[in-house]
């Protein structure tokens, strides 16, 4: 059974049909790419999947559980984590605390216990620090743990966003244009990171990307979106050689 499945997903903004009859089926452990020209509705689909928008029709199923119309935090708890096209870190917090914020729901103690520093505070914080440092090590960020997140170099900020998303222990990771604004070297490093995340955490990844080198390099399956509708779907090479897809991207 597919890990993520959407059926006939659709949403309109006023008179604009942003996404129409969107079907996708992502298998567990797959690296799945979502591509399409600007304004095709890719980020809108991510926003539908994470509960930022409520779909007008259709259904979203994660591991067989219906997530349609659920709130963002419920969807996070159900196991979908994401990164953002324009990086959204907690800029004034240390890098370590960015990851610890991601661990928020997995290491609970009450506000009261926190203020009065009861034993559970120390125990939980210690466990949280260890787990957060582990994650930072996985992404090669441990030396930056005490830096403010906004002072990190661009490429590291992207990695930190992925680390923070992974801290929520998701079943499915959504990456929104992870290579945007990166130079070829950084992109290559990022490809290794994404592959590593998939193998190391046994993660299922759905990503939006414009960089064709990255897409053809790591994605196993692709869905091409154009004007809110699915234009092509299937194995990466097959889809990329599809004449319709080439037309959509390059014009007649």
């Amino acid at each position: 059974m597919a890990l993520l499945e959407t059926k006939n997903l659709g949403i309109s903004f006023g008179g604009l049909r942003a996404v129409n009859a969107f079907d996708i089926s992502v298998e567990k452990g797959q690296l799945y790419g979502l591509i399409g020209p600007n304004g095709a509705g890719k980020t809108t689909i991510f926003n539908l999947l994470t509960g930022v928008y409520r779909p007008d029709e259709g259904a979203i199923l994660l591991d067989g559980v219906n997530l349609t119309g659920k709130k963002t935090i419920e969807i996070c708890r159900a196991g979908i984590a994401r990164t953002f096209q324009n990086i959204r870190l907690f800029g004034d917090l240390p890098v370590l605390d960015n990851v610890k914020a991601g661990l928020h729901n997995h290491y609970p103690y009450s506000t009261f216990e926190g203020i009065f520093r009861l034993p559970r505070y120390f125990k939980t914080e210690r466990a949280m620090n260890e787990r957060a440092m582990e994650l930072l090590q996985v992404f090669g960020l441990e030396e930056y743990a005490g830096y403010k997140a906004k002072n990190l170099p661009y490429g590291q900020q992207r990695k930190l966003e992925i680390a923070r998303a992974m801290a929520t222990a998701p079943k499915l990771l959504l990456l929104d244009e992870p290579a945007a604004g990166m130079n070829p070297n950084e992109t290559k490093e990022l490809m290794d990171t994404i592959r590593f995340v998939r193998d190391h955490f046994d993660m299922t990844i759905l990503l939006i990307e414009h960089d064709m080198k990255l897409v053809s390099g790591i994605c196993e399956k692709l869905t091409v979106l154009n004007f809110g509708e699915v234009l092509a779907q299937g194995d990466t090479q097959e889809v990329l050689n599809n004449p319709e897809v080439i037309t959509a991207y390059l014009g007649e």
Partner: protein
Amino acid sequence: MKTKTGGLSKTTKSDLITYGMVILAYIIVQLLVSTGHVSSLIQGLLVPFCTYAIVAIALNLTVGILGELSIGHAGFMCVGAFTSAVFSLAFKQTMPSAPRFLIAILIGAASAALIGFLVGIPVLRLKGDYLAIVTLAFGEIIKNIINALYLGVDSRGVHFTMKDALSLNIEEDGLVLIKGAQGVTGTPNDSNFTVGIVLLLVTLFIVLNFIHSRTGRAVMAIRDNRIAAESIGINVTKYKLIAFTLSAALAGVAGVLYAHNLSTLNALPKNFGYNMSILILVFVVLGGIGNIRGSIIAAVLLTLLPEMLRGLSDYRMLIYSVVLIAMMIFNWSPNAIFFRKRLQQRLTAGRETEKEEA
């Protein structure tokens, strides 16, 4: 690289410096008072110092940590002041002062927290300027309600009215607690400098520990990026409300301290109006938004300054505002920050060369 895992972390050290600063100030002041070096004018300011430091810390929790602009904190102070003053007055004869004052503090904090929670539910849906305007209006409403409120108690129970003292129909054995615009008269003077410092330390303890807990981290995450915070499963409404309610409760504690330092408590524009709210905001901004230690220092300096300038009579407020502007430039102007950094570098470099020469 320093992290919070081993030994004393940077944040813990910084917190200890803040506590130490307050305790040291207390000891020095007590020494000076006992040797007779403190004028009665300054002695009269000791409790206000604590009051304003506490309310500045409370507001910094909202402005600096939660990242929302509130100009209604004088209103929460007002709620804490009046509820606790009424309680203390009603039980003036029947309870010893220590437990009475302790309960008064809890009542002041709880009532301000309750009002903060109720106000917070609709207000925290707003952002930026809108939130500021609504909190401003709330502060004025509280002040005006209390100015029109008459409250009394007698053998038949509690009476209140918004008309006048006569319509309370208090029996002869009864006691009028709030007399409208005349406020509360005869509140026991339970506040003193030592109590003020203890409350300031408790406030510091609560706020600093809050900031460094899981809850505080969630609140700051919301401040830095609400959408990202939601995406990692942080309940935005819940944590905003927790921070705002705590902030209101602490402002209420400042109100309790304020009320028990005066024999007559009125809700005037000067003490609970929007002027006061703005003044508290000035403490927070000048002390550094999000900088708890700075709030205390700014609150003390800016309470002291107008009194020190009293000799200049007419020019007093002029000089006061010039000093405010100068402080603002020194604290926030990029050029001034650059200058300060260079000065610091030169000083540390000088020390290093000295070491080398030695």
